């Protein structure tokens, strides 16, 4: 390693694949940064933000696994990938639900909106008692 950083003559084919996976995983992070800054509203930003959490992490773990190639390391990498696969959709769902509730706070008539009606039927019950007679989506709770 005495030459410049552009000297790639010492890479094996497996190293090439690992490098490509790592670069694509890093590209996911770059795209997420651009999208989080440029997209117009909260929902699309959340949509873009989940890309590096699943695909980016998975590609990076593939690259590191190909580079290190020891069973203990691959165990830790699989643990990280499985944890991300389990937790990323849950946290994205929670964030989207909070954003959705915030965005529809000032809607005039949201009786058609089940997600909001379930949340708010208890709070708004006195005003709507004459309209839906307790058969709304939230009456089962």
């Amino acid at each position, binding site marked *: 390693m005495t030459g410049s*950083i552009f000297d790639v003559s010492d890479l094996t084919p497996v190293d090439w694949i690992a490098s490509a996976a790592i670069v694509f995983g*890093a590209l996911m992070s770059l795209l997420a940064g651009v999208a989080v800054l440029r997209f117009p509203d909260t929902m699309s930003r959340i949509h873009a933000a989940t890309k590096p959490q699943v695909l980016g992490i998975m590609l990076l773990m593939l690259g590191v696994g190909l580079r290190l190639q020891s069973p203990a390391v691959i165990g830790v990498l699989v643990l990280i990938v499985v944890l991300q696969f389990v*937790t990323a959709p849950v946290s994205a769902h929670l964030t989207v639900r909070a954003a959705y509730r915030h965005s529809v706070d000032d809607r005039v008539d949201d009786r058609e909106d089940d997600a909001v009606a379930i949340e708010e039927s208890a709070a708004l019950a006195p005003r709507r008692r004459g309209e839906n007679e307790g058969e709304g989506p939230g009456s089962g709770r």
Partner: protein
Amino acid sequence: MTLTAFIAGTMFGIGALLAAIRLVKGPTQIDRSVALDVLLAILVGVIVLTAAVSASSITLVIAVVVSLLGFLGSASLAKLLPRDRR
């Protein structure tokens, strides 16, 4: 592998910078929470890249902890953010 680290590190840096701009600007608190999520994912990526470049697995344990912290942070922020906007 040094060239890979250079390219990937530049991408991570630019992505983190853009997410940090959104973190400062973000009109709603949820936008800030999303930007923090992206920053934590980039942090996991940088830690993993460190492990790949140095060919040692010590820092991978930190990546496990940081990814779990990211889930805890965004889930609790979504639960506890106040309902008033801006």
